[in-house]
């Protein structure tokens, strides 16, 4: 009891010097301000949803378009003078987007996972400290630079290899070239999230496997990767989601031809590159084109949002397993 009252007395004495009254006021004001900053992020999400969907709803409310044909139609010709629902089918844009996302995933997932296993299981600390920052440079290079690289280097290379030597037609704007640079761009993201997950796997599991006579390969692929699997899957999903939302490289390299093609050497248009195309055309805010980018943007947002939520649950599950 004595201890407590002593402590209290000292506390009172000290808080006298810190002018209690002013502090209490400051404390309350700051608490409100900081809380405001904390919840501001929620306002951003609400703002995104309201701004995208209010315009998208205005778009769908027009007699010239139709929600059903928007999602099922296979013709995207919004700039045509013939404004009919049949010209507002978003599937070619989704097709183009997914094509590039899948092809760039096919590049980034194996290379990113391989890099992650190397960095987490094989590389010495010294090598890791050199390679990791170098890989992160790849993630820090602006996407417009990747677009330039695709157009000025990858596409001519594809033309030389495929067109001149093998006689396969390569469009100047093509999905493959864009996919290659987008794939390279997301390697560091896939690698770093996967590596974090693998490094969170306890050492004791690796030792347990080594003690059974497992080789490094077996420990990496049969123990560490399965144990980190939900984190690795989250990395894959986030990588693909990033590829879906990638804008500049695909606008520059993949062209602006919305079409239902499966040929990676054709020009395609993605959701993002359509939005850029219209924004450059300076469509007036109330026009059908000005509104159509919000319908496409809302679709894009919904796709990436769902993927992000899924990857968050994978990451959460992973954290719970090893914390």
């Amino acid at each position, binding site marked *: 009891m004595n201890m407590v009252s002593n402590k209290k007395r000292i506390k009172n004495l000290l808080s006298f010097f810190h002018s209690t009254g002013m502090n209490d006021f400051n404390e309350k004001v700051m608490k409100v301000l900081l809380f405001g900053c904390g919840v501001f*992020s929620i306002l951003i999400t609400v703002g995104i949803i309201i701004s995208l969907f209010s315009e998208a709803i205005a778009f769908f409310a027009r007699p010239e378009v139709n929600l059903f044909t928007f999602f099922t139609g296979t013709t995207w010709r919004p700039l045509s003078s013939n404004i009919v629902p049949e010209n507002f089918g978003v599937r070619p844009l989704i097709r183009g987007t997914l094509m590039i996302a899948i092809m760039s995933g096919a590049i980034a997932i194996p290379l990113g996972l391989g890099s992650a296993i190397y960095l987490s299981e094989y590389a010495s600390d010294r090598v890791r400290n050199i390679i990791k920052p170098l*890989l992160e440079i790849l993630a820090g290079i602006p996407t417009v630079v990747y677009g330039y690289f695709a157009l000025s280097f990858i596409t001519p290379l594809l033309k030389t290899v495929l067109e001149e030597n093998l006689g396969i037609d390569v469009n100047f704007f093509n999905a493959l070239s864009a996919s290659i640079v987008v794939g390279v761009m997301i390697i560091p993201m896939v690698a770093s999230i996967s590596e974090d997950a693998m490094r969170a796997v306890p050492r004791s599991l690796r030792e347990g496997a080594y003690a059974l006579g497992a080789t490094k390969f077996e420990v990496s692929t049969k123990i560490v990767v399965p144990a980190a699997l939900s984190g690795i899957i989250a990395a894959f999903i986030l990588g693909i989601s990033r590829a879906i939302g990638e804008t500049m490289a695909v606008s520059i390299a993949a062209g602006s031809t919305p079409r239902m093609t499966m040929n990676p050497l054709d020009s395609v248009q993605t959701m993002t590159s359509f939005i850029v195309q219209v924004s450059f055309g300076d469509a007036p805010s109330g026009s059908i084109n000005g509104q159509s980018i919000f319908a496409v943007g809302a679709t894009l947002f919904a796709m990436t949002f769902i993927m992000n939520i899924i990857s968050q649950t994978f990451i959460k599950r992973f954290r719970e397993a090893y914390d």
Partner: protein
Amino acid sequence: MENKSVILAPIYKDNLRNRKIIGKIFNILLLISVLAGLFMLTVLLVDIAIEGVPWLRPELFTNYHSRKPENAGMKSAIVGSFIVISLTGIISFPVGVGAAIYLEEYARKNRFTDFINLNINNLAGVPSIVYGMLGLVVFGRMFGLFSKDSWLVQTFSLPVQSGMVNGLVFNLFGIPWLEIHLPFGRSMLAGALTMSLLILPVVIIASRESIRAVPPSIREAGYAMGTTKWYVTRTLVLPIALPGILTGMILALSRAIGETAPLIIMGAFTYVPFLPNSIWDQFTAMPIQIYNWITLPQEDYRIHLAAAGIIVLLLFLFILNGIAVYLRNKFQVKW
């Protein structure tokens, strides 16, 4: 159970040699995947250097875009990027750090806080082009509230203009230099606000890590003196966390300086033959100028001038990153 030991005789293949070979092959594959990324990085940088270095001329910094490639420069884009990024820093720093302080020091661990965390992680994954659309509606157009036929303008008969400047222009408190434009339109302020929202999740996450790294004993020492939370945060926690916060901030800005899509959606111009006078002026930025050159048909723009512009942009990026790394190394305290 005796019979079991009969089955237990080790029926193993002598497979160690094969397993070792598989391990070697795997090791090589891993090395290839690491080197593939680094190889692409090298090729990219070399390609840009080859195409761009011969075109790195003073005109690039002193001239505006021109019809003649040899005269074309990116003066307005450099200045535009510089101002927009500075504004972005000024806007996002207090909000981002405030949110980080709230989440690390004040927020209780409950479902609401979990929700904020989930939300921030999600925002970090929203494509930048979506932020552009948000900025366009909220800052650029302000939901059309200041257009001629909006209910707001009609009800209060606001004196809106149309033409070069759209919407409402007035001086706050009648002070001449406190000019306000509503909506923000295609101004630098609108661009900077949009960029601020874009980098906010990154700023919050980096600031939180830095604040979290301050050992609890420091706070306890402060509380033991009977001071308030804000006092402890301001005088003890923030000074220690500040270098880390600044590092994260600069890295976020270096991401913003290369962002193109949101500014294009916001309506940043590709051709701005003057330097801005105020935050209400229209602007262009380095990546937009580069994008513009890439899309021109002439090879001098598309290949050479674009590469030279990229080199300038990358130089700015490396300087920013260099400052961040310097800050981190200089002030990093190990506990």
